């Protein structure tokens, strides 16, 4: 009996994998694609955390809000390009508002307080977005090629490919930004210590607005990808929760880490669901990512790319 169970867990799935390599490739690609989608959301988190030390729980709501605004504008007949530009503008305005109303009054509080404020922000934006644009599921079409084509034996989805390329471009741009420019350095200083950064003359408010605006644009991109994939709906903000395990694996402060973490979670989830899921009745995607993150945390609390935490007394 025990041998059967062990066999089912440790042997059979691998035999399945080897037995149908084409299928395995599809699952892997599917995992990579969904992983990159997670990464796009996680990138927004990382930006804000890296630059202000704030763990922005509302990132998912930002993604939802961006997507809702875009679709809402397009539904009212605004041409795609204009709608994109307008939405980007809306996200910048939103960033300004968030900085003024939420961040500035809480500037010197502990991180946990800021985190909880972003939880509040999350709910506020969800309600607000829905109130403005309605709660029904919407289709999002910004001209990204849908459909798939075959690469040898493997089915490749064009949308997922586009998402992957977009993610790659974004990551490169952001990595260069953070390490190559003066503003990037200032952002890193702010993330380390608000007060110290203020005291050497870094314009905190401007920096925060920039960061949240950029993050808003990233959220818009993520929103487009997710929206085109599965329609724009309320559950989009729950995607943010999924991004948390990605951040844990990749570290909260690492742009490449967000990608790697996303890939690991995406692939792990898909493979787990396809090959091990049937053993326990399926739907393990609900919790697999979190348990994976939890196990990971036990061994390496700072994530793959994070810095080792040295505590001082």
């Amino acid at each position, binding site marked *: 009996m025990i041998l059967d169970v062990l066999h089912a867990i440790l042997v059979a799935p691998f035999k399945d994998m080897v037995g149908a390599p084409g299928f395995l490739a599809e699952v892997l690609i599917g995992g990579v694609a969904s992983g990159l989608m997670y990464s796009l959301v996680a990138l927004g988190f990382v930006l804000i955390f890296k630059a202000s030390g704030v*763990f922005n729980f509302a990132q998912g709501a930002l993604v939802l809000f961006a997507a809702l605004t875009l679709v809402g504008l397009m539904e009212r007949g605004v041409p795609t390009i204009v709608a994109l530009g307008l939405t980007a503008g809306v996200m910048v305005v939103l960033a300004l508002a968030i900085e003024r*109303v*939420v961040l500035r*009054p*809480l500037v010197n*509080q502990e*991180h*946990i*307080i800021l*985190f*909880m*404020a972003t*939880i*509040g*922000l*999350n*709910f*506020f*934006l*969800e*309600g*607000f977005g*829905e*109130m403005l644009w309605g*709660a029904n599921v919407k289709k999002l079409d910004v001209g990204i090629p849908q459909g798939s084509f075959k690469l040898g034996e493997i089915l490749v989805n064009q949308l997922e490919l586009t998402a992957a390329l977009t993610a790659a471009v974004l990551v490169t741009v952001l990595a260069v930004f953070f390490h190559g420019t003066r503003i990037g350095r200032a952002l890193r200083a702010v993330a380390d210590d608000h007060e110290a950064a203020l005291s050497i003359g870094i314009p905190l408010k401007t920096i925060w607005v920039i960061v949240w605006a950029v993050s808003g644009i990233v959220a818009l991109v993520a929103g487009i990808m997710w929206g085109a994939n599965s329609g724009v709906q309320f559950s989009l903000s*729950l995607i943010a*929760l999924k991004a*948390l*395990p990605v951040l*844990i694996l990749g570290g*909260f402060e690492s742009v490449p880490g967000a990608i790697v973490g996303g890939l690991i979670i995406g692939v792990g989830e898909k493979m787990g669901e396809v090959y091990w899921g049937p053993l*326990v*009745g399926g*739907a*393990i995607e*609900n*919790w697999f990512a*979190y*348990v994976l*993150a*939890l196990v990971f*945390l*036990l061994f390496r*609390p700072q994530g793959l790319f994070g810095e080792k935490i040295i*505590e001082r*007394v």
Partner: protein
Amino acid sequence: MIYREAGQFKTTYAADQAIFPVVQDRWVVVAAVVAAAVAVPLVATEYWLQAVLIPLLIYSLAAIGLNLLTGYAGQLSLGTGGFMAVGAYAAFKITTAFPAVNILVVFLLAGIVAAAVGLVFGIPSLRIKGFYLAVATLAAQFFLIWLFNRVAWFSNYAPSGTITAPPRTVFGVMVTGPDASAGARYLMALGFVVLFAVLAKNLVRGRIGRSWMAIRDRDIAAEIIGIRPLRTKLLAFGISSFYCGVAGAELVFLYYGSAETFAFDIALSFLVLFMVIIGGLGSILGSFLGAAFIMVVPIFLANAPHMLGVAMSTALQKQIELMIFGGLIIFFLIVEPHGLARLWQITKEKLRLWPFPH
């Protein structure tokens, strides 16, 4: 001037460390509890009992549980819904398997089961802190809900995974099931929450509460002083989960009547967290205030437009509710991070002088 402490000298340490050192406080609270137990069931309508007071008492209990873990011990948890589910399903299994056991005992046993589960999910808290711990508790939340969904044994193989509270009596009075009166259920919920609130207060004013707060404020210094972090944190997880487990069981047995796992999903975790933040982290009174506040807002939103003569769809209501909750969290965190409880304290301090300006 009305709320005067002048003339109240404490001559013993015992008096100083009482739960309500100021005599007026003591009388007011005792009177409130007596009124709640005696007057309310006589006066309140069925609607008020069923729709407002019973859930208020149940949520207060859950809020106390989360407050002990997050407010006093500083361990952020987003798994409250999951632990409440454990209590609910455990109570269901125990009472359906052993119908002769008194439902009061069943609730306590369900709490103990929830405590055990809480202990397991609290083990990572030694290595993991802060936001990371919150994510770990999310693992608990999602996993537990999935478990109760998937494994039909938990709901006794009911078709949609629903659990239904069977009729049970206490001292001959029907307290659960379709025939139980709202008054009986209300009194049971009241009894539990008052008892557990007192126990919680005893815990937090003594050595265990201090150890929790020490870990919350400066865990490294606490360890160097001699507090054992794992033991202290596990105790917090265990006790908090006990409270949440009992609250979860009450939620199904005394309020909903029957429920699916959906009732315990992540939204519930956030709801209880909101109660604790708005009410005041690290305050037993705050747990009650926060629960009351969260209950009042939807009622207000449901009725206010009526009274103002404006029509509002339920969808819009829900959206405004979300916005108000979210906005209030931010408001409280900015203005008074210690929540309603602190505002209440400040009011009392002003009352000491009123009507004099200073």
